[in-house]
């Protein structure tokens, strides 16, 4: 680390020794320009921009060096090693339940820890809690705005959080008394600048992790359900949590891993050709998958610090909206904008199955907490559970 600082200092000192216009690396056109007399102010500006240029070169050199180092570790492909693994048989997966009740596009859904209840939100402004096993609706809340883009179930099963274009995250406690007006009991957490694009509960009902659209950072707001204050703490945090302190974020073409404790980005991956729509940890936490508008899903390993697999096919040209792993991590489910779900063999890199059923884009996909089924929400107003 020190030697780099020294290098920067060295640069600045050399530029001070010479007259600025000579230090400038003259591009070809400049040859024909007469150097004008340079006043004091301009000199300083020129020095600043030169250090920026130097820094950029330094950054580029480091990038090159990093790529070289990483390439040395790339001794084999995952699917090559996985050739010795037994192939998976034929799968018979189909829709087991269809949940109808939303009046518009379903945008988000989440499972309850009891493995059968789900919460879903839709463009019509409704948030519905279902018992997916019986297909009964248990609660329905109307949000004051439409486009409810994010919803999540609390770990205790006693509350749901949701938000969207209203720039707020609202947390609703769920009560068994159907007559109770849930809307009256909600607690809101306001977010000033932009709309809510994702939310999830951390390990407890006390903390909700949110992400805002349009910015690189996201905020975590802790809302205490038992008390009347909403905003109690601010971290720099992100879309999904597996461990207590590490989190994943997909931001444009990059996938970042953040350490919540320090608020620092500790790893970054940029191999997708387009926006990343969804990231999900591999069950062991050592790797994660991402789905993007470039119609591919990719697997990144945190220990090797690189992409280790791509899941794509020539016949798949529509973007992936949502991905999730099966319990063992052997299967990767992807919900696509071409109304289908593709099931991939994570190790071998091949597609195991393609599932039809939805009549419009699949917008969200989650595997149930015990891995017995996965649920998809779609722009065709319905949710389907598959097993």
């Amino acid at each position, binding site marked *: 680390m020190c030697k780099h600082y020294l290098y920067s200092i060295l640069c600045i000192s050399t530029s001070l020794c010479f007259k600025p216009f000579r230090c400038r690396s003259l591009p070809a056109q400049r040859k024909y320009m007469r150097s004008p007399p340079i006043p004091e102010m301009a000199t300083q500006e020129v020095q600043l921009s030169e250090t920026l240029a130097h*820094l950029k070169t330094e950054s580029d050199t*480091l990038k090159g060096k990093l790529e070289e180092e990483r390439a040395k*570790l790339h001794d084999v492909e995952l699917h090559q090693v996985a050739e010795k693994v037994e192939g998976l048989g034929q799968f018979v997966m189909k829709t087991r339940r269809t949940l109808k009740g939303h009046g518009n596009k379903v945008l988000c859904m989440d499972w309850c820890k009891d493995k*059968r209840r789900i919460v879903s939100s839709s463009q019509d402004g409704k948030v519905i809690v279902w018992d997916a096993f019986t297909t009964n609706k248990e609660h329905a809340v109307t949000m004051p705005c439409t*486009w409810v*883009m994010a919803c999540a179930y609390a770990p205790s099963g006693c509350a749901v959080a949701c938000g969207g274009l209203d720039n707020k995250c609202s947390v609703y406690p769920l009560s068994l008394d159907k007559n109770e007006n849930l809307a009256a009991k909600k607690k809101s957490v306001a977010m000033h600048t932009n709309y809510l694009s994702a939310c999830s509960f951390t390990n407890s009902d006390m903390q909700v992790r949110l992400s805002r659209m349009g910015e690189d950072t996201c905020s975590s707001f802790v809302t205490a359900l038992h008390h009347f204050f909403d905003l109690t703490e601010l971290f720099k945090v992100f879309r999904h949590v597996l461990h207590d302190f590490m989190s994943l974020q997909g931001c444009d073409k990059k996938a970042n891993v953040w350490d919540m404790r320090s608020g620092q980005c500790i790893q970054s991956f940029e191999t997708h050709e387009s926006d990343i729509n969804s990231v999900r940890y591999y069950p062991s936490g050592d790797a994660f998958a991402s789905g993007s508008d470039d*119609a591919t899903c990719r697997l990144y390993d945190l220990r090797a610090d690189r992409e280790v697999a791509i899941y794509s096919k020539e016949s798949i040209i529509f973007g992936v909206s949502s991905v999730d792993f099966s319990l063992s991590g*052997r*299967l990767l489910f992807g919900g696509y904008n071409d109304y289908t779900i593709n099931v991939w063999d994570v190790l071998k890199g091949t597609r195991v199955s393609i599932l039809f059923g939805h009549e419009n884009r699949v917008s969200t996909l989650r595997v149930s907490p015990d891995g017995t089924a996965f649920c998809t929400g779609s722009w065709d107003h319905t949710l389907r559970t598959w*097993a």
Partner: protein
Amino acid sequence: MAEGSRDHGGAGTTTDPEEDSPNMIVYRKIEDIVTRIQDEKAGGVAIRTVKSFLSKIPSVVSGADIVQWLMKNLSAEDPAEAIHLGSLIAAHGYIFPISDHVLTLKDDGTLYRFQSPYFWPSNCWEPENTDYAIYLCKRTMQNKARLELADYEAENLARLQRAFARKWEFIFMQAEAQVKIDRKKDKAERKILDSQERAFWDVHRPVPGCVNTTEMDIRKCRREKNPHRVKKSVYGVPDEGQSQPSPVHSSSQPTRKPTKEDVQKEISFLNIQLDRHCMKVSKVADSLMSYTEQFMDYDPFVSATEPTNPWISDDASFWDVEASRDPSQQRVKKWGFSLEEALKDPAGRDQFLKFLESEFSSENLRFWLAVQDLKRRPLQDVSARAQEIWTEFLAEGAPSSINLDSHSYERTSQNLKDPGRYSYEDAQEHIFKLMKSDSYARFLRSNIYQDLLLARKKFLSQQDDYWHSTTLKHLLSIHGYQIIKALDLSAMCPRLIARFLLLHYDLLSAKHKVEPRLMLYV
């Protein structure tokens, strides 16, 4: 109207700020496919004129041909996939059936035509209702049976007439002008252009019940640098500026150039990455494979569950079994995979605690559990709880003092000056490693664990006794001796008895009114 059915009109050549929008990416891919299909010399399909009754149908392809091409050239594994992809290409307006408003692909002799590049969705058409009104009006002026308005189109026209009542004269005039232009064209060309125009409107004003594929994900709308740009008209009608701006959230910050601080941050990040110790892909691959291998037995999608998956069999007993206090053998086996797995399962946690208590060394696990709980507390409780943990486990003369190395001890006492949820992170990690290397291994060898692992046999034999003593005698007393005569029950294992009773459930329930609950128990 549209000039030239084959030339590349419209935008998309010079500056296209929306080139990276997700819809655009797909459009470009589809355009690539459609261009390849039409290229006969490069293995595309033959576009011909088909004779039908008294007339000729110019420039068509059969659905089956398209499906064949897709299967061959895009390695679509089965026709269903090719048909689905083809239907989507149609739904986006790149190919269309010549005699249907509904845009899907069929794998038969149905005839399809390719859309003119002028009408391609990638030209960012957002046609106004005035254009649509002109189009419908124009259609009514052409006295041809095949151009009659469909029901939904007639309804739309009526609605538009009401909405544009004041402007209707103008619209009528525009429609007349378009009809005049059309009449000048060659008959065959007109057929083609008419159908392409109709297909265009089928995309932007779809048949009720069909998907409107021009819809965009609102989250991606923020990319549009100029969401309120002037929309061009299909028929060259000047925009009167009455169009409502679309409700789009434009990003508050324009993209700014990287500053020195940004680059410096990047450099320090890169340096951290260079210092990181990484594993080889071969090792990583082995690790992923062994993890997956280990858990495949527990993955309901890969291995059948016992009892059956509730979603498939509609029977929720799988969940009842999982929630019961008596863990199954398989579940107990999972605790042996790693300490993380054992602690994830509440039953595993209990058993491990029980084991440690028998060894009088439970303080480590209790500390670990207390810290986990601390992380879930509401903020106002955090500092009080942190203090309690200190007093219980770490202070001088603490009742359950844990063994922490001096370094972690120092760090933790520093952290506690400003207590937060992660104050005990270092200590917790240290204790976890300690448990993993020491007590966990012993737990797996202990009687408590081993008994549970093999407990099935004990549990079953318990069942045997129960069956033979109470239930079976009871059942037999109700159902008489027909059963005993048929079998020598005392020698049979309970499972077989159960199966027998199930088989004869109908008979038994009808004749002797056996309670369904009993049968389920079986």
